[in-house]
């Protein structure tokens, strides 16, 4: 009971994930700032933003669904936190079971749906456009992402993340065997997180802030938290699936290596957002279905043949 509460609230549950999410946001903003020759925020800036937003007035335009706007960020937060429970941190897996990869992917998909619904339940044209775009984008990146994630699963013959980790201790990190799959997973993750260059649903110059245009105060804070935690969970998952966990090392060395891998991933994401211009939604659909999906299928076939 006490142990369960510890897992849920502290590690790897709420407190740890929120902290990691905020650290991710800080690292990301700092890196972006340095790429742009700026100084960047101090380490407590994301937390300060969060506190500030929570203390702000909560407004919604008349006609927007108050019910949807309140419940959807909470549902999203709950699902990303739940997903986080099943993702191993440096090989530490308290709740592992066969098939937890599917559960994680399901829960990770919930915020996207919530984002779509929240846009559609609003009255502003920007929100509606943002919601519609997020669904279109979902169809473009989700299939390549699933194909990329099934690579490690097929190779290790297990649909649990800890099973995939175990397989990697024998075979070596999977990104060596599946570089294409790894690339696809990164692109898919960027799409899932709606980050530059695939921030089409919330492109500032086109649809202001997408579905979240009408949001303010605590609800907006919750959405920011969801995005941050979703990002860090996605990164954790990617590392588990493609880098594996160090074998037989002391826990602190394992944690150190894991932290290094996380930083590398954050660097890749930040650099990608700095280096590429935002795609149009039709270009993304074209890229997704003409390039990424075939590449994913070929990669999967290659993995299946290798397994045989």
């Amino acid at each position, binding site marked *: 009971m006490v142990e369960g509460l510890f897992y849920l609230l502290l590690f790897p549950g709420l407190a740890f994930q929120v902290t990691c999410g905020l650290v991710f946001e800080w690292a990301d903003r700092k890196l972006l*700032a*340095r*790429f*742009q*020759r*700026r*100084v*960047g925020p101090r380490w407590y800036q994301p937390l300060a933003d969060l506190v500030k937003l929570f203390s702000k007035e909560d407004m919604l335009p008349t006609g927007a669904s108050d019910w949807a706007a309140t419940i959807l960020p909470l549902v999203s937060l709950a699902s990303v936190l739940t997903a986080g429970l099943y993702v191993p941190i440096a090989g530490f897996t308290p709740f592992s079971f066969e098939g937890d990869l599917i559960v994680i992917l399901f829960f990770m998909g919930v915020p996207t749906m919530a984002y779509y619904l929240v846009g559609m339940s609003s009255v502003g044209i920007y929100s509606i456009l943002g919601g519609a775009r997020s669904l279109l984008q979902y169809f473009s990146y989700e299939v390549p992402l699933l194909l990329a994630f099934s690579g490690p699963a097929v190779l290790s013959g297990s649909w649990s993340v800890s099973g995939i980790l175990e397989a990697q201790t024998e075979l070596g990190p999977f990104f060596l065997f599946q570089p294409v799959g790894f690339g696809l997973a990164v692109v898919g993750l960027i799409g899932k997180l709606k980050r530059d260059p695939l921030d089409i649903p919330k492109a500032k110059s086109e649809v202001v802030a997408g579905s979240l245009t009408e949001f303010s105060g605590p609800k907006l804070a919750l959405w920011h938290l969801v995005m941050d935690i979703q990002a860090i969970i996605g990164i954790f998952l990617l590392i588990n699936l493609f880098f594996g966990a160090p074998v037989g090392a002391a826990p602190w060395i394992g944690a150190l290596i894991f932290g290094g891998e996380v930083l590398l991933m954050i660097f890749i994401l930040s*650099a990608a957002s*700095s*280096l590429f211009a935002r795609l149009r939604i039709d270009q993304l659909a074209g890229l997704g279905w003409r390039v990424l999906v075939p590449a994913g299928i070929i990669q999967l076939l290659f993995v299946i043949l290798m397994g045989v």
Partner: protein
Amino acid sequence: MAKKNGLLFALVDALFSRPETVRYPFGPVSLPEGFRGAIEFDAECCIGCGLCVRDCPANALELIRESREVYQLRYFPTRCAFCGQCQSTCARGAISHSNHIVPSTANPDAISVVLKDTSGGRLD
């Protein structure tokens, strides 16, 4: 190489060079030689021709006549557009721009200073 990976090169270059941000109120601010701040007035040189008052596009100057030889200048620093016209107009070199930055206000008529001579009429 630099051509092909232009943006990547710029990114790495930026990452390993010092940030350009100026921490404005905390660090030193370098002003150029010809910076146009609050004006300074040299009553010794002034002959009271009043051209500066006429040419001022912002109506920031008023000439006060003390006697035939002695003139003072009333200056509204927050009306001033810092254009340098009075300095260029004054044939006797009685008006010059200092490097004192004047903070802006909501009411431009609120502050006025009577400039008597260079040392006493300084705006701080």
